[in-house]
């Protein structure tokens, strides 16, 4: 039993990753938009789990807050507003689907050809590992937020400020776009 739990703990990333892929597939394949949104929520939560498995605790929590708390709710509102069971969607997929699928498969093939060596080839001479002195900021749970904030506010202050302006513009733009026109 302990061995089992240990195995799960070691493969946490793979488990969450595969679950996220399943959720994403349901987003694309499901016929009803509400089901798509719920699968999207599931996928986002699983990706948050992936972030936690990669020891990015702050980002995992931010992912849950931003996506599950904000974006999914926004999507659900719009789905309820727009998709008033008109059943107008005769065909779920576009006419050009065949070509699109072919193009995506081609891309997958090209990428796998590049990746084949990395995955099935001989192991790289040294596994990627953090040097001890660099790992300190990221290793410990309560230090992750500290490390991120140091990186964000010391190294990337300008992009951060630009982001705040972009968010303001998006807010105003969304209000202007969605408001009803008075006659």
């Amino acid at each position, binding site marked *: 039993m302990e061995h089992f739990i240990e195995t799960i703990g070691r493969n946490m*990333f*793979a488990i969450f990753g595969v679950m*996220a892929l399943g959720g*994403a597939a349901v987003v*694309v394949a499901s016929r009803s*938009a509400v089901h*798509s*949104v719920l699968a999207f929520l599931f996928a*986002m939560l699983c*990706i948050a789990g*992936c972030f936690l498995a*990669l020891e*990015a605790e*702050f*980002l995992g929590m931010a992912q849950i807050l*931003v996506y599950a708390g*904000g*974006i999914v709710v*926004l*999507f659900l509102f*719009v789905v309820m*507003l*727009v998709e008033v069971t008109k059943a107008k969607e005769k*065909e*779920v*997929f*576009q*006419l*050009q*689907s065949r070509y*699109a699928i072919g193009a*995506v498969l081609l*891309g*997958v093939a090209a990428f796998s050809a590049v*990746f084949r060596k*990395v*995955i099935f080839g001989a192991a790289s001479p040294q596994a*990627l590992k*953090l*040097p001890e002195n*660099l790992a300190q*900021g*990221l290793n410990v749970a309560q230090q*992750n937020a500290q*490390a*991120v904030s140091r*990186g*964000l506010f010391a*190294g*990337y202050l300008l*992009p*951060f400020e630009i*982001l705040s302006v*972009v968010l303001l513009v*998006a807010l105003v*733009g*969304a*209000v202007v*776009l*969605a408001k009803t026109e008075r006659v």
Partner: protein
Amino acid sequence: MVNLNAVLLISFALFSIGIAGVLIRRNALVILMCVELMLNAANLNFIAFARHSGSVSGQAFALLVMGFAAAEVAVGLALVVALYRKRDTVQVDDINLLKG
């Protein structure tokens, strides 16, 4: 420590699913969600490389990407609502105003 190849594979698959969704679905809302999936795949890569290079820059940038994704969703959904008011549809095949 998580294998970097595993992360790259998962994020690649996530990106492929997202791009396939954008290309083959007709519903504008689903297309927006697939764009979000692609952004999340990119975020996953950012965090994986940050983890493996031992710098926090990747995590900081992933946070910025998350903010931009939120802005994009707000504007995109406003466009969808405006479109629905004008044309009474959210199917991208029915929207051909620029066709002339």
